[in-house]
């Protein structure tokens, strides 16, 4: 028998819905709390911009959906207020039919705006939910795109003197890609893991990552990683999984099999020693090996 957890896409994501009609906001909040798709998120509501900014700041809101004209301000003004409260926030403004060119320009330049919709969806739970779900997928795509430039640069600089690792990193990112769907991670967590994996190298000391990047979430994953070079044990599931992806990639690169990885997982070598290692079975390792072989054959062809 196997039991499946509820879909992980929205796990732990903090959403704020702002509506000056307090009753409507409460209604949307109670529907969101009872909705299967959103049940793993944390859904907050506010009825004015001041309350919204306070929540964004205190609770570190990920996504905010709010109407144009809130408290007499246009959506660009509120967007700035929310960004001031949390620079990483993604927003979905609900705009009216009349929008000025200046507003559109401001709007285009902002990295916070993830999508927008007509303000006639206010109070319509299904429409709001769709906006949120689409936004999360969009965040995932956009974050991957946005990060690729700077991540590549960091990776390249860390690969100086380690050219042999270029192919390993290709395989490790593939390994992570194959493993992620099996685990209970939200869209944002998956993104953070992928970025962290790109920058992970076993010879880098955990503390040194803070001199390389300044994103707290990605930094946390890297600092909690393990290392067979440093005999460092992972401190979290994300830390374990990026260590394992790299260790598996290196082993395959060197030996064309993952026997050593299976052995390390079974014996719980210190660099993989974390409770979550229990979730890595021989089946996952074999799955990875098959995938690596496939990639290699494809490349050869």
């Amino acid at each position: 028998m196997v039991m499946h957890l509820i879909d992980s896409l929205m796990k732990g994501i903090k959403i704020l819905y702002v509506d000056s009609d307090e009753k409507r906001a409460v209604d949307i909040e109670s529907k969101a709390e009872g909705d299967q798709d959103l049940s793993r998120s944390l859904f907050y509501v506010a009825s004015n911009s001041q309350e919204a900014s306070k929540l964004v700041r205190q609770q570190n809101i990920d996504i905010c959906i709010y109407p144009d004209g809130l408290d007499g301000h246009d959506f660009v003004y509120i967007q700035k207020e929310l960004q001031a409260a949390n620079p990483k926030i993604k927003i979905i403004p609900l705009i009216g039919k009349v929008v000025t060119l200046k507003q559109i320009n401001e709007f285009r330049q902002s990295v916070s705006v993830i999508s927008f919709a007509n303000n006639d969806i206010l109070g319509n739970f299904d429409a709001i939910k769709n906006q949120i779900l689409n936004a999360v997928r969009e965040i995932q795509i956009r974050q991957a795109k946005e990060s690729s430039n700077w991540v590549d640069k960091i990776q390249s600089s860390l690969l100086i003197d380690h050219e042999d690792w270029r192919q390993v990193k290709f395989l490790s990112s593939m390994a992570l890609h194959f493993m992620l769907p099996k685990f209970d991670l939200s869209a944002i967590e998956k993104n953070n893991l992928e970025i962290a994996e790109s920058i992970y190298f076993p010879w880098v000391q955990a503390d040194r990552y803070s001199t390389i990047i300044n994103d707290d979430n990605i930094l946390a994953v890297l600092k909690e990683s393990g290392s067979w070079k440093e005999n460092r044990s992972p401190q979290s599931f994300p830390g374990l999984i990026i260590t394992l992806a790299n260790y598996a990639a290196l082993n395959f690169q060197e030996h064309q099999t993952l026997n050593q990885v299976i052995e390390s997982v079974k014996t719980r070598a210190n660099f993989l020693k974390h409770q979550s290692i229990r979730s890595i079975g021989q089946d996952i390792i074999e799955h990875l090996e098959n995938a690596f072989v496939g990639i290699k054959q494809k490349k050869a062809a």
Partner: protein
Amino acid sequence: MSNVLRLVQTEDSCKDRQSFDQSIDACITLNGNNHAVTVIDTFSFGEIIISMASKLSFIVKGELVSIDLKDPVLFGGLWRVHDIRENDERCIINLRHEFYDFAIPYKSYLGPEIFYKENQIHLMHEKNELSQHITELKDSPIRPKAAIKDQTRKGVQAKWNFSNQQIALDAFEFESNTPEVFRPGQEILVEYNFLAKRFLFLTKVREIDSDFGLIITELPEYFLTINRRLNNRISCNLPALDSGNGEAQTLISYSPKALLFAGPTPKTGSNIIIKFANMTEVTLKVKITHDENKWLGFPTNTRENANAMRHLFLKCMPDDIKARDQNDHEKLLGLFEQVGYDFSATDSKWREKSIQAWSCIDEEIQGTTLSKIESSGKYIASCGVFPHGKFCFGPHSGCMIKSMDAASGFFEILNYIFNFSEYFEHTNFFFASYSKKSKMTSRMYHLYDQQSNPSEFYLFHALTIFNNSQKNAYNKDAPADLRIEYVSHLDAKLDSFHENIQKVARIVGEPQDYIPSLKITWALLFKNQEVDPVALVHIHDSPAYSSSIDLYNSLMIWVKDPAMSTAIVSYLLAQPNLKNKVINLIEGDGSEQPNQKENEANSDQAFYSLTHKRDLNILAGSISRTAWQVLRKYGEDALYEMEKICL
């Protein structure tokens, strides 16, 4: 209902079989027909034996019957006919609970009383429900502690562990300091509490991981869940005196159903009177001895005792929960002002009138309002409770400031409020009105509807109109074609109203005599000389501002035809004795929300609910879940508060 019967509701009652010496009147329902029966044995696990005057040929083995005892707190639910035997004149039927087959493996871990209360036990076996529960446990910032027991009921404390991050779980993991006490293949029971429910499942140990201190179990096919007892015990330390023999006692824990004492145990079965310092005496029947130095007393069921128990309950409250008295009126008014229950703009005497009303009511009955106090002495949450009528009681004036401590305190008070059902003799329903603007109440009832199956529950939508505004849409000439008739009793004229309205009217309409200054009268409204009324009016009178929105100076108007609402409300407000009342307008059968008038400046959409006393534990569970949802949004700061509520 005799006092002795209450024993079956206590934790250890099943040990005391001999005390169950009286038969219980009950009725079973089969194919919609009720049949009187006598319950003659309830102590077999998941079974009851009933006796009927004669065999009814239509009762056959395997059939599900609904059973209902006269005291609805005790029995209910569906039972399957297992065996039928006939004596000379009587027919003896052995019934088994609908979950008997699922519950029987748990016999050595559970007492038979879990089957008695309807909605007490629930079987969780559907895939969706199970995965939702496990996901919720995993996402909870508070990890429930589980007791893992072997067949001898010995075991260890362990904590749910979700470090295995797989989406597809094929085992459960528990963290323990001593996992080695179990061995692979061993049969175990896992038991834990979460959000006011007790969860149990039987399974096998798959593996012991000493390296990480883990007990890994097989997945069970189903979980049993049991709603928590409604009246949790409150720890206290109050001196008492056994007036029978003059020996000193100490009350160490309190619940409305049973008092636990430390002191010399009186003789089992004796009636004794305990005198508490500065308090009314409480008469108890001594029933169960726990050990040499502790004993349980069960309050006898008299009105005087109920009052004394209520006094005692207030004494046992935690230090930061306070019953309203003359010293805290100003602080309570301060809280009311802060949350928007401030009527000084429309009534300059609001504060004085409120204090007068509270003083009057507190003299008649103490402790009808509980407040949560911050360490600084500030009042941050409060809720009142009144017997609305003879058959129902309910909360009023619920409020809290917007803070984590206030939210936690408010939910704590709500749970204490439920205790009051024990102190009003005939109250069987919890009657509550809620503003639809209130986040907390909307959420609470949304969950209650979705996640439980209350046995008797009425919900109706209302429009509350505060008649203190000149802009009121109803302030115009009264229609001439209506006439009002005041009635002393609800009679057959109710027949023309919707069935649910009749039921609700009869539940909420019977006057109570616990608080003489709260009065209920009735009126019917007729059009011209027509015989059938067009509206039923429930008139509440009380000292002004006895509750926050003056709910007890209100009219509850049940209008048959929504098209007549405006005329009827206008007519009633033109009556000199009714013109200052708050109005609660309910249209038709109450299933639709009455429309707010466009120029109506001072009205509020609301809903009313009537929950049977036997379902209050479900409501309490819904409150816990609501509290959890509210508090978890405060993040890590709320962990301690959440732990108090969730586990």
